[in-house]
């Protein structure tokens, strides 16, 4: 599959996904209602649902899916491993620990912003620890990075379990659902924060593309080609972690997007990061918008956690892609 205008396909994908997201949900509002509301009309309830509930969710899905896919691409380049994903280095367990602490101590009740804030702080702290551990003689050793991430995650998970076992039962329930990921309750305010954090970060990630291409040849060859290897690794790590952390803070843990999307894009359109990263940005957003629509679909009032949808759909789709795409 070559450059059959991949950007056109991806943009169309995003548009269709967004529309699907806007017309999905238990309220049964369709395209007609959407058009009416956009024109300024429509009844109050429809306006509330479309503009205050569904639209922010769709936008959040686009932003979060994009951020996760770019983050996954960055980590796959940094660790030179196609199985790398945004949560590998402690982002998710750090965030979960922050969230659980907030729930168990009751701080989460103080305001709607406490939970995301606590999650953000937790993930940044975990990333900081992993970064520190992987610094050997002033350089980032990527093999140690993976190990440090895995070990840190395991330790933090144990801490979380301990807290939940000793804490009140209500905290357990809230924590469990938080780890499954959810875009419910996302407001325009949170979208603004998401955009402010993730869009500039993504911009810098795109600029790193050439260096990432060189890095795929190995650190020595990359350095010989003029790449400041330590700076490139550090930048990839920081941006990738920041993108993952801000998404976890807002929506909890949403798996598979960060792993499957960049890998899928690579299988379809090659691994040149100048294309891989922007295309993953679009593809990730579309994928998550579809997943969110499915989570809210015609299943009645009950909502499926979005992490479940991404796993159930993402894995078979990815397996199909793997079988088709390994001919180069």
């Amino acid at each position, binding site marked *: 599959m070559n450059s059959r205008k991949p950007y056109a396909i991806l943009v169309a994908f995003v548009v269709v996904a967004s529309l699907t997201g806007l017309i999905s949900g238990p309220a049964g509002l369709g395209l007609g209602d959407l058009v009416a509301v956009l024109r300024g009309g429509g009844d109050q309830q429809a306006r509330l649902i479309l503009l205050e509930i569904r639209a922010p969710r769709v936008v959040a899905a686009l932003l979060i899916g994009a951020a996760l896919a770019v983050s996954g691409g960055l980590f796959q380049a940094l660790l*030179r491993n196609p199985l790398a994903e945004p949560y590998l280095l402690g982002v998710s367990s750090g965030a979960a620990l922050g969230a659980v602490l907030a729930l168990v101590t009751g701080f989460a009740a103080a305001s709607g912003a406490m939970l995301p804030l606590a999650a953000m702080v937790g993930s940044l702290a975990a990333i900081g620890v992993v970064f520190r551990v992987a610094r050997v003689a002033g350089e980032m050793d990527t093999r140690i990075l993976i190990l440090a991430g895995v070990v840190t995650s395991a330790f933090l998970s144990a801490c979380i379990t301990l807290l939940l076992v000793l804490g009140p039962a209500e905290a357990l329930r809230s924590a469990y659902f938080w780890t499954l990921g959810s875009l419910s309750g996302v407001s325009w305010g949170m979208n603004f924060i998401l955009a402010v954090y993730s869009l500039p970060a993504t911009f810098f990630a*795109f*600029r*790193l*593309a*050439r*260096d990432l*291409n*060189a890095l*795929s*040849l*190995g650190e*020595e*060859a990359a*350095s*010989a*080609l*003029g*790449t*400041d*290897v330590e700076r490139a690794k550090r930048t990839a790590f920081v941006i990738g972690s920041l993108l993952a952390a801000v998404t976890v803070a807002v929506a909890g843990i949403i798996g598979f997007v960060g792993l499957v999307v960049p890998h899928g894009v*690579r299988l379809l359109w*090659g*691994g*040149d990061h100048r294309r891989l990263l922007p295309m993953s940005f679009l593809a990730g957003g579309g994928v998550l918008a579809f997943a969110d629509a499915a989570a809210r679909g015609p299943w009645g009032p009950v909502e499926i956690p979005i992490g479940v949808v991404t796993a159930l759909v993402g894995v078979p789709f990815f397996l199909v892609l793997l079988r088709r795409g390994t001919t*180069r």
Partner: protein
Amino acid sequence: MTLQLAGVSLTYAGSQAPALAGVDLVFEPGTHTAILGPNGAGKSTLLRVLAGLLSCDEGEAMLDGQNARDWSRREFARRVAFVSSEEENPFPTRVRDYVALGRNPYLDGWRAPSAEDKGVVTFALERTDLLFLADRYVGSLSAGELQRARLARALAQQPAILLLDEPTVHLDLGHEFAAFEMLAQLAGELSLTVVSVTHNVNMASRFCGRVVLIAAGRVVADGAPEPVLTPENLARAFDWPLETFVQPGLGIVALPVSRRSRP
């Protein structure tokens, strides 16, 4: 554009013996030097110090009088190209894009390659006889073709100096000869300074104006091929008895002798 080592010593962490000890070498512009020596002599280490990829414990490597590690990697890469014999497998990429990576030191994140950049890549592909393979995937190339592709990538950097670590290690007799011949041609044509680490005594003697013999981190001999590649020097360096034969026009051949046949 002079590259030199001044009093360079380097010991790898955890090892007793130094990898390089007090090495002084100057590489004049336009010369083709071969670095020869046994395994573990420090040849690759020496080349990497020259390329600014390793820092030394004592002394320094200098490009045009400035410490190699003080140059920005981009600026350095515009002047010095380093090609190693082993590399990690990149993601599937076409030969043309692979060679185009050599333009990285001249491009930054956003800028698309200019017509000039594309011209340099085509030139590199031409000179390494890879133009007909430009649209093939790197994964489908033979070892020899891949080695040429790496050389093309190095040429795309438009360097003044070319550092090659065992550039012909995967090549058979014919391809090895062709590679050395091409190097000599390019060096003359583009006025490149070439430093090649090699095991091949014959190729070194035929194509290189200067041979540096290294053993145990020290320079054993340094000069034109004939005076350097003597049985005594070679036996001392390789710790193995050798006989040499000089054939006019075909260079020097060194043949090892069985230890048992010598007293």
